[in-house]
């Protein structure tokens, strides 16, 4: 039962972060401009983050979806989500109304709500909870890691 739940969580979180990572990779300049609007970091960190973060999200999403090192990936993703939550909370406290940049180009194309507001905070907290659940549940279904471990056992 728990392994099925872990599998469902993996598909949800993996799918979301794979797509959001791809959307940001396709337009890194836009992501950099969004980060600049947050007014949290100096320019050098903003540019580096705009290069690094989309790929990190994409790889974490892919690994969680395929079940490769998915426990470590979900742990990293949980901490990433906590950071996003803190960043959005700081925006709300300072009264700055901007896009949160969570889904990049995809938000425009699918007209998804992408504002940095309390909805985004709640969404990120839910994502964090799901990531911790994936990390906590030790068994899962249909993972490449499990498949290869079983193959090794047979040999």
């Amino acid at each position, binding site marked *: 039962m728990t392994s099925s739940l872990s599998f469902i969580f993996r598909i949800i979180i993996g799918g979301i972060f794979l797509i959001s990572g791809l959307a940001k*990779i396709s*337009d*890194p*300049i836009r992501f*950099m401009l969004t980060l600049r609007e947050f007014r949290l970091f100096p*320019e*050098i960190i903003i*540019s*580096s983050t*705009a*290069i*690094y973060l*989309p*790929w*990190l999200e994409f*790889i*974490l999403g892919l*690994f969680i979806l395929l079940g490769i*090192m998915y*426990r*470590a*990936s979900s*742990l*990293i993703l949980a901490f990433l989500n906590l950071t996003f939550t803190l960043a959005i909370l700081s925006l709300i406290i300072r009264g700055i109304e901007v896009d949160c940049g969570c889904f990049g180009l995809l938000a425009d194309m699918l007209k998804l709500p992408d504002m940095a507001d309390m909805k985004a905070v709640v969404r990120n907290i839910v994502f964090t909870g799901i990531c911790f659940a994936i990390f906590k549940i030790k068994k899962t279904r249909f993972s490449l890691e499990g498949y290869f471990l079983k193959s090794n056992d047979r040999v």
Partner: protein
Amino acid sequence: MFSEGLRSPSRFLHMKRILKETIFILTLSLFISLIYAAASPSGMVLLKKAFRITVSDTPEKEKVERGGASQDERK
């Protein structure tokens, strides 16, 4: 409670494995992102900004400061 858990060898080994995997994932992402940034034009702009390689924005600054055409334009 947490330290007690770490004292058991299997749990310690498990946490060590998670830590190794975390470092591997972070490094892999770093390499891929740098390679992609070096290969794509928009990524290159960000790389130049990140490593503080100035991209001829001095004439624009001169324009603002002097309130007229830049040295390049005058030539």
